[in-house]
């Protein structure tokens, strides 16, 4: 009897931590958590985290007159980002996958440059792979479609660069690397133990610290789960856009499609019903959440720059956060580059950039305004179906795949 009990517990543990979750499971859970975030206040976003972090870094350094920056622990996105990193750390510890992985110097430089490009892309194009796309498409935003096209173009270009780099500058991705604190044999049991302690602290901590502010509390708790689920399923939007041009495998694109479908369903219910908008003009305000004024050229250009950055860095805004949590130092440099560049871009580049672009290139396009709710949903379903057909055809034929 004791053996069977041990067996059941072992199976339970093994299901969650013994192996990587199917990525589509991650997509479904993350989309559900995103709907929860929308119900709490606002759909999921990645780049606002770095903007807040960067503003606080410059505030600390006394640069760029950012004295009014909201402290990280009091800012919904700043806090959510930290908890996403910690949630991923918990996932990595519980599954004994945590380690400080210091890559060759060239890789750290690529992380930094990739982060800078993502900061430029997300501020110039308004939105990253999460806020602009994974939330933007369910938010029925027309600009999100062009942002996605930009990501694909950027991913293609950056992959060509990486292939060129391997031939012409292989030293950039080779050299001394160091791995610290990896779980080794039976001695690695400290990782799950630390993971359990950390998760207990992180679940209790936010509700105690922000007892008076339930929005912050929920952002913290959901952020923790977002990071955990991302790490366990290795959910990666970068991969969804890069892989058709690299190996041709369809796992990541299908996981993102699953997330989009659940998101479209949940967001449409919230927007159609105007849930949370019981105040004058509230229903319209709810309907326009995560619909940014970047249709179409602004999203396309910003998305392309972001797409280049995410492939060079090896993770998008959220891909960077959860890989930071499992100890990948390259992505710490990506996060640093993103954080340092984003406030500068907002202050010095975006104002001029938005003046240069004509108004027709940066419109706020809420698809139901043009097609009605059902027409908008149908349009998006057709686009996702076409993407699915392309991805599966390419997986079979390898027409667009490089390796």
């Amino acid at each position, binding site marked *: 009897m004791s053996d069977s009990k041990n067996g059941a517990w072992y199976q339970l543990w093994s299901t969650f931590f013994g192996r*990587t979750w199917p990525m589509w499971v991650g997509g479904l859970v993350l989309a559900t958590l995103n709907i929860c975030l929308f119900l709490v206040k606002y759909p999921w976003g990645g780049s606002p985290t770095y903007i807040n972090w960067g503003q606080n870094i410059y505030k600390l350094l006394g640069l760029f007159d950012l004295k009014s920056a909201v402290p990280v622990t009091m800012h919904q996105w700043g806090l959510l980002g930290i908890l996403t990193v910690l949630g991923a750390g918990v996932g*990595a510890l519980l599954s004994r*996958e945590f*380690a400080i*992985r*210091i*890559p*060759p110097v060239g*890789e750290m430089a690529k992380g930094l440059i990739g982060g800078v490009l993502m900061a430029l892309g997300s501020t110039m194009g308004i939105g990253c792979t999460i806020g602009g796309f994974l939330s933007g498409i369910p938010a029925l935003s027309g600009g999100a479609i062009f942002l996605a096209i930009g990501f694909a173009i950027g991913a293609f270009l950056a*992959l060509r660069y*990486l*292939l060129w780099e*391997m031939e012409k500058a292989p030293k950039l*991705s*080779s050299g001394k*690397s*160091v*791995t610290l604190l*990896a*779980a*080794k044999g039976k001695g690695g049991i400290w990782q799950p133990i630390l993971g359990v302690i950390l998760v207990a602290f992180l679940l209790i901590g936010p509700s105690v610290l922000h007892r008076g502010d339930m929005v912050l509390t929920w952002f913290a708790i959901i952020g923790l789960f977002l990071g955990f689920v991302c790490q366990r399923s*290795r959910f*990666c939007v970068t*991969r969804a856009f*890069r892989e058709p041009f*690299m*190996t*041709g*495998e369809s*796992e990541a694109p299908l996981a993102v499609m699953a997330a989009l479908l659940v998101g479209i369903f949940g967001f449409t219910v919230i927007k159609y019903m105007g849930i949370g908008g019981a105040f004058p003009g509230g229903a319209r305000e709810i309907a326009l959440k995560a619909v940014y004024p970047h249709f179409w050229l602004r999203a396309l250009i910003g998305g392309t720059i972001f797409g280049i950055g995410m*492939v060079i860095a*090896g*993770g998008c805004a959220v891909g960077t956060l959860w*890989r930071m949590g*499992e100890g*990948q130092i*390259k*992505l710490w440099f990506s996060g640093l580059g993103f954080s340092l560049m984003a406030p500068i871009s907002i202050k010095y580049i975006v104002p001029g950039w938005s003046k240069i672009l004509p108004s027709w290139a940066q419109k706020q396009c809420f698809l139901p305004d043009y097609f009605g709710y059902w027409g908008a949903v149908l349009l998006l379903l057709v686009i996702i179906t076409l993407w699915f057909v392309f991805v599966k055809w390419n997986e079979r034929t390898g027409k667009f795949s490089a*390796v």
Partner: protein
Amino acid sequence: MNADETLDCKGLSCPMPILKLAKAIKAMESGKVLELLGTDPGSKTDIPKWCEKTGNEFLGMEEEEGVAKYYIKKA
């Protein structure tokens, strides 16, 4: 497990291990075995999948001292 060639991908994260693996396998003769050393957790699923898709044989993985060793036989 004995290997004919070793590819060091320690410290590298996605997508570099797969890109380097594809390049190394391309340069090898059929039937030769490549040992890839890696530290990216993602490689545990990526490398077997890539082998399955490209027809190369994934012989297995060993892990010691925080470094995973993957063995791939070129088709």
